[in-house]
């Protein structure tokens, strides 16, 4: 007899709007934070000890937040919203100032992606009108724009990553026509393209060590693909789901667990090695919009957060025992 599925560790209520995006900042366990971006333009900073919202940041004029992330420490925040703007915030010493504001021009749902290139220098990819823009942070110097030649439709999701062996950064991008493209940022060209879904590709995550990724769409399946030695994307197996639609896929830092947020209100967990289904977490009463894992240094403290259209954030502790 299998164990009954776990229940949430605790639930954060009070955002008053659908939770679109979540981001943990738990480098210092004593002051672990969770950032959440709501459908009404508010960014909540939740203290995971008091389990209360420490602050609420409003800087996007009430338009829906698409993505939040931190760079460096929990003091610098990036937020992206549907008011076509991307802001960086300075949150140090109780401040809450917008230090930089970039006009993106994108009204889509595509989230940005950020990666540390050198100490204290980050590369940010964000969607612009029918192309991706890359800028360097914190200077804000534009690096390049990547515009596909063929008509692939709207950009749906991106993921920046740095391959081993000295090559420049790579970018994985999912498009509206269900295809996935691997961009070489330095050469500004697509190295490989793969049609993974018949429907628009909604989310993806990638494991730069195992060179393996997964993507989700509006169908009943999660596709997994690999990057071979010749930088070609190749389709691997798919995992069938009971209900269609995946909002987000996230791989845990230790590369053991994959989590998916589904339109069927459920969070699913898979083992990363074989994509074996491990658990179906039923708590939310509306579409689960996002799921993310914490960046605790001590993996036993690790948390998972899921946000839903039902305005609640559920916090879970799963497979932390070993």
């Amino acid at each position, binding site marked *: 007899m299998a164990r009954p*599925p776990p229940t949430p560790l605790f639930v954060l209520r009070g955002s008053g709007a659908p939770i679109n995006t979540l981001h943990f900042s738990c480098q210092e366990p004593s002051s672990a934070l969770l950032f959440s971006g709501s459908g009404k333009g508010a960014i909540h900073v939740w203290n995971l000890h008091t389990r209360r919202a420490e602050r609420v940041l409003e800087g996007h004029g009430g338009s829906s937040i698409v993505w939040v992330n931190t760079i460096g420490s929990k003091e610098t925040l990036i937020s992206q919203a549907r008011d076509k703007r991307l802001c960086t915030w300075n949150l140090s010493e109780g401040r809450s100032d917008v230090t930089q504001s970039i006009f993106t021009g994108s009204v889509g749902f595509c989230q940005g992606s950020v990666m540390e290139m050198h100490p204290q220098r980050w590369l940010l990819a964000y969607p612009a009108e029918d192309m991706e823009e890359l800028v360097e942070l914190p200077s804000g110097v534009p690096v390049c724009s990547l515009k596909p030649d063929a008509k692939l439709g709207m950009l749906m999701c991106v993921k920046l990553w740095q391959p081993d062996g000295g090559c420049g950064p790579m970018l994985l991008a999912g498009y509206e026509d269900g295809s996935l493209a691997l961009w070489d940022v330095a050469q500004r060209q697509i190295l490989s393209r793969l049609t993974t879904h018949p429907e628009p590709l909604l989310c993806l995550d990638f494991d730069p060590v195992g060179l393996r990724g997964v993507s989700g769409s509006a169908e009943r399946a999660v596709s997994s693909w690999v990057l071979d030695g010749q930088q070609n994307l190749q389709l691997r197996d798919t995992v069938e789901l009971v209900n269609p639609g995946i909002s987000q896929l996230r791989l845990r830092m230790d590369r053991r667990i994959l989590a998916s947020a589904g339109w069927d209100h459920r969070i699913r967990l898979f083992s990363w090695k074989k994509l074996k289904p491990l658990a179906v977490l*039923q708590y939310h009463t509306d579409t689960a919009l996002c799921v993310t894992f914490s960046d605790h240094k001590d993996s036993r403290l690790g948390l998972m957060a899921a946000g839903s259209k039902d305005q609640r954030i559920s916090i879970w502790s799963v497979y932390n025992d070993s």
Partner: protein
Amino acid sequence: MEAQRSETEVRLEVNRCIRTISTSRDAVEVVASLRTLAGYLPDGPHARASASEREEFDRAHYTMVLKVLVGGLHADWRQRLTSAEHTELWGAFFLQGPPDQALLVIMDCIGTIGQSSGQDKMVDILELYLQNGRVGALLWSRCQGPGSPDSPQLRETLLGRMVSLPDLMANRLYPHNRPLFLSAQYYSLLAQEFKFALDKTCKALKDGQDCSLRFVAQLLGKTCVQGHSEHLFKDLVPHLSASTRSDMVWQRVCWRLMEDIPDRWMESVVTGLVQVVTGPAALARILGNLVVKNKKSQFVLTHKLLLLQYKYETCVLRTLLGYLAQDRERRPLLIQVLRALCQAWSSSSSVRHTPVEQQLYLSRALLLCVSLLSEAELQELRAELMQCMLGGMQCHLDSNVVRIRRIGMVVGECLSSRLNTQEARLKFEYEQDEETKELVSMMDPFPPEDAVLTDSDDELTPYDMSDDREMTKSAPPRYIRDCLEGLIFSEDPTRVELSLQAAEGLVRKNPSAAREVSVELTKVLLHLEDKYSTPSFLALRQAAMVALAVVDSIPVAEYLTTEFYSVNYSLRQRMDILEVLALSAQELSKPIAEQGRPSLPPSAAVTLVDPQSVPSNWRQVVEQRIQSKTRRFGKSGAPAPVTATPNRYASVAGFFFFPLLQSYDRPQVTFDLLGSDHLVLGRLVHTLGLLMHLAVNAPVATQMGRSLLDFVWAIRYHTDQVVRQGVLFSVCAVFLSMPGQCLLAELSDHLLETRAWLADVAEGDADADCRTLAMQALVLLDKSLRTQLEPSALDLKS
């Protein structure tokens, strides 16, 4: 002339020494004589005799000398010897002369003298004898030369002593037996000596010397037939298997050894060997083509182990059939075995009259055989296999036992996939389990050595995911009438599914509303077809019907029991009716109180010491502490006082029970209970037995028991084992539930006959369950008879 003289000289000298030893009281004289005799031993400081003298001594005088030595066990001179002298002049005689004579004298001596220091001495000598590898020397002495010159009596005695040494010793020495004489140790020592003798034989053969393995083979055979093959082969077979791998001489020695085993012991040797040896190749190296040459071993290997016995592991089957398949000369035997297996598998009588385990065994062997066939052979045997498959599947699928049906399906699938490489293959829907998987795996003749693949994901144990169902758009019905409507009129699969899912809950939540529509809803449910492949359709439908029968027992039970015998129902529906009746009766007979109160977890059973209560003495304090620290699993610490609740079933049992007995003997066009529909009959008898069992203590139990006994009496010799099981189950239920005095009155006429019938079944039925049930019934009957008869017997006495 020379030999003649030395013979006389030896005789004279030995006789003189013997006389001295047995009569003289002078220790010095005796020691001198012993020294002289020791001169005839092959080794040692005193050895001085020539080869011919020694030969003469060994032949004619050795046993005599040993006997004299044994006779002098208690003589004075022995006390005077130092321990070194003792070993040299006394023990050495037993360990250096011809080992066979020594063994016989030692064992005779231990057997004749009782427990004493003398016996201890001899046991010591025997231990030394075994430890010094004298048994190996004995075996080797018999291997030399073209054949053994012994008389048959001597050989038999020697074999007997060697094989049953542990038994003899245990009998004589109890309770002071030595560990070396325990059978596990002794036979592994014997295995070592076998290795030694065979090794020497191989070397001698390579040197061009003639050898005979007859004695060794006889010893092997006799050891096996006395049931010690396991201990013996455990050490011996791996050695044989390893030695024969590269050495042709070794192989020939092994083959010869096997061929020399007398027929009467062949079976136990071969059976023991097949079970221990790993893999067909090793068996072939050890046995050679014995199966072709020796009729007895052929019978055992190709008939007895496969068709008459069924206790062996699958690996034994693999070894055996693989061995038959390996060689061109043995190949025809494989075909012959396959034909025999086909015949047995497709015989309906064997399906009906042999235990399930045997059929499983047979099916494994059949599939293994088929998997070993080459394409050409397959083409040749195609027609026969096809016939076997069709006939066998028919009689397997006809069976009432799920396991047999499943075996039929799996074997059918496997055979058809082997026969038709391209064309249509059979495909059945059956539940996979260990058994079917194992059967299917038989089609792969060479399983990977390490079949257990370690799943690296195993560290992450999945949680229960059974709740992960498809989301539904529409809302489930909230009232029982909506639900009923949904089931009757809806063409919408989701609505039907939701209604079905909600039905049980709605019925239980609002019993009064459910009573208004109970019969109608039951009717709808009973006739409901699984049009939309609703997941777990049967379970949901059944749960709803059970809920209805519980909430509104009498009308629903009346309806269901009437419908059971009416026309135009499928067997499935009739079985459903029976299941629903049984399950609802079960639920009704449970106390109601338990439903409201969830059972407490075990930890809650720990009672804390009440700080308020002042314990009266220390003993109580200790007692309380022990109680508070003791966790009791399963049973709560102190059994809660049982509150009496009315048994809801008792009052309605009759409505469930009697209508089912009304018209079983009136066959209809579509339903012939006592004829071909024995599937339903088996279920009916089971259900009746259950209904009877649940009615224990109910007033109506006596009448129910009487009717049930009448009913099952007529069908107690039914050919179908499921029916017979049901009959026996019912009988047990009657014995359990019927009040004792009524039972006696009821049975009075049939009592002896019943007992005889039950005893007969307990002893001779082919089905294991039937036998156990019959045994159970006998015990119950005896118990209730005893309680009934004893008080009256006492009355008579007083």
